């Protein structure tokens, strides 16, 4: 039974059960799985066209029963001379029929989409997406950038002494020994470090906050990288809390520390870290542990000490508040809406 006042503090679930992950598809992309298929991490689930374009279907009839979204491929007869054609240019996804002629989305240079999580395919909708019921447990974030990725979880290797989880990773702290890892970096990270991490073969970064400027610069770098012909392995950034600097919450840090060295995955939709380590014992945090998630004391943690009622805060704003006791000190009143508890 929790203290009744804690009901008024937003609850954050640290680890949740299995989730449904969506992999988006665009017209022309080709799904390689079907509903009911069982996937293991790393399975190829689709081919994505780098530059799809619209074409009128030529070179053969389209079957009468064809529907928008169906695949169409030119069947080359076994007899007669064969022309050498560019890759798969004569196949594509049927989009719509106009004046008795079908238009299709087609293109060259397909890239493969691999699933970083194991699970069962729930639904495949051409041009829309693939939904997979992922196996494993989940830590949710607020945003994920990049592409779904999988790697070995590593904790920031060089935290300054006594800095705890609220550290900022510098580009110079990275080395090639981290290739293949998904690295937990602490409170924030800049775009230069993210770009360097991807170049060094890291598979992902987990961070509490990502500032808008760094986010914009990273997305621009990611777009340039996607446009290049020589692609690097997938790379993902999982943002756990938001845009301003704050340390990773200690209950989440504890879970990450417990699964460090094991394979994990970052998925985009929903933004989350997925891990399938059922044997790892994850002890729940104390029920009265609360964390300040916004405001002037952002990132501080303490123990719940009861409701404080309606109180006056800076600039004469009156807010419902709660008492929290940090490091055994005197209780301080914090707006309830700035607090979170864990379950």
């Amino acid at each position, binding site marked *: 039974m929790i203290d009744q006042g804690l009901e008024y503090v937003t609850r954050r679930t640290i680890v949740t059960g299995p989730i449904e992950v969506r992999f988006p598809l665009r*017209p022309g992309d080709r799904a390689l799985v079907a509903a009911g298929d069982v996937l293991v991490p790393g399975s190829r689930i689709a081919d994505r066209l780098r530059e799809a374009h619209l074409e009128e279907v030529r070179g053969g009839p389209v079957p009468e029963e064809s529907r928008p979204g169906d695949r169409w491929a030119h069947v080359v007869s076994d007899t007669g001379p064969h022309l050498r054609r560019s890759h798969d240019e004569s196949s594509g996804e049927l989009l*719509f029929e106009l004046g008795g002629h079908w238009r299709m989305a087609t293109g060259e240079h397909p890239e493969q989409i691999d699933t970083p999580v194991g699970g069962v395919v729930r639904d495949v*909708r051409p041009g829309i997406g693939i939904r997979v019921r992922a196996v494993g447990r989940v830590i949710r974030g607020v945003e994920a950038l990049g592409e779904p990725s999988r790697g070995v979880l590593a904790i920031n290797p060089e935290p300054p002494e006594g800095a705890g989880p609220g550290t900022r990773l510098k580009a110079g702290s990275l080395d090639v020994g981290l290739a293949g890892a998904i690295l937990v970096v602490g409170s924030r990270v800049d775009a230069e470090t993210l770009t360097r991490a991807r170049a060094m073969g890291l598979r992902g970064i987990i961070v509490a906050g990502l500032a808008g400027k760094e986010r914009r610069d990273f997305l621009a770098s990611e777009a340039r990288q996607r446009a290049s012909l020589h692609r690097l392995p997938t790379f993902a950034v999982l943002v756990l809390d938001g845009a301003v600097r704050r340390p990773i919450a200690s209950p989440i840090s504890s879970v990450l520390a417990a699964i460090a060295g094991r394979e994990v995955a970052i998925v985009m939709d929903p933004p989350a870290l997925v891990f399938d380590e059922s044997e790892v014992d994850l002890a729940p945090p104390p029920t009265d542990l609360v964390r300040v998630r916004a*405001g002037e004391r952002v990132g501080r943690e303490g123990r719940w000490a009861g409701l404080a009622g309606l109180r006056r805060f*800076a*600039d*004469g704003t009156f807010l*419902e508040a709660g008492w929290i006791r940090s490091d055994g000190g005197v209780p301080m009143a914090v707006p309830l809406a700035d607090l979170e508890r864990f379950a």
Partner: protein
Amino acid sequence: MTSDPRAFLALDLGAATSSVALVARLRHRWRLIGALAMPASIDVDAIVRLLLERTAVGDPELARTLGIARAGSFRSLPRLVAKSARPQRLAAIAASDRAVRPLTEAARRSGWGVTSATPQSADPLTMTSMLLDPGIDAVLLGAGEPPGPDERRALDDIASLVAAVAARRPELTVILAGSMAEELSRFEDYQGQRQGEVLLVPVASAGDPPGSAIGELLDDLRAPRDDARRAISRAAAALADALDRRIEVVDIGFDGGLRATATPGVAGARSRVVASFIADAGLVPREPDDETVDRVLAWSTVAIDRHRLRDRLRELRFSPWSDASGEGARLRLAAARAALAVLMEATMHHESDPAPDLIVASGGAWAVAPGPAIALAIADVVRRPAAVGVAFDHARLLAPLGSIPDGTERRQLIADMADDVLAPLASVVIPGGIRQGRSAGHVTVHAASSSSELELIPGGLELIDLPPGERATAELRFRDTVRLGGRGRRFAVDVAGGLGGLLVDLRDVPLRLPDRPERRRELLEAWQDSLWITRDR
């Protein structure tokens, strides 16, 4: 609510805020006993329990009378619930850019998030991708009746394209407007899979004002009848009848802004309400773009660079109730002003009617702001040369009361509770056409107990203390002819007191702010300081 309870709970469940009010019948009148608002992530029953506990502590005898003193009583109280509908997105498709514009406008005013495309602006592959996006809930495919010369060539193309998408997305609602209704046969159900509706609506320009016919249908489609915003519109009409005044409700919420203008009925006629819900006028959009950041920065009294402001706005979106004091409170008010400005710009058609007598601020954006600061924010943005009262739906009662299905019962309850529903913030007098100079004239305020006189300085804000509940007459004498309802130099205006008193606003109409950020901040701060009296200095 057709039985006769002694007390009930009025719940407004928004996307970011859950608000609970306890209403009880005392001495033959319905009265607001107490209200409490908290983030939507908190269990509603827990909020109800806390409200009832506080009521019981504050007035044990009243609690016993109402039967809410005993544990578990929160379960037995009847509830009047208004819930904000989930925000929805619509794709407007037409054969030309000219033809898509009225469709986009009508959908935008009906609360839909709108994306539009035409063969002139996008290729068929891009249009297909756009419509296949699972974030699109409905497609509005329209054409003129008869189609214009710029539309005819592409009608078949877009009908084929949208029909193909509809076959792939049976859950998609398809709305055919104008002569596109002739293409209905293309959207016939395939193998009984279609879950979304296929609807026929009039041409985009139909109705008075133009676009209102399609707008009403789109509004019906967007949200159920008990949607909080639709309920607020009905409540505004009932309030206009109850007070016999023109009412304008401006509601800024998490997922959009509502402007509802209600005129009381005369000679037995029913009141008339024009309502527009604008999805882009939410407190902070999902992804604040440069335009949003600039808009908020223009109203900010906090010295902050664009990158940091964008981060703060994104945090506000992630967690709309957090960081609500100090600098956070001032940024929140800047964001609310920016959202209100978007709402005003998108609903200019409301201004064909005379200015309202009373503006009611509503919605989560104002939930934790001091009352006088809300009045100033309204005066900053809603600038029409007139004398208006400004009030606040402090207990968020408008939506639940507006959700009462029976119109008569709704009007009776709102008439009974009008004084409790609205917290008077200020009376604002905004003369238009003030010329620069040393003095624009004088105002004399005749209140019950005393009179006071002030010189009117162009470009300034004159504050006259007039407490809530007090009524007075403001006699304004200008040196030159100004606009205040009509044109003239001498006006006598009846004003009512409020938390911010009487505000004679001699600033420009519309408000012009200095381009230099420091000077603009100083000016905004000076105006804000005069009304936000509880601010730390």
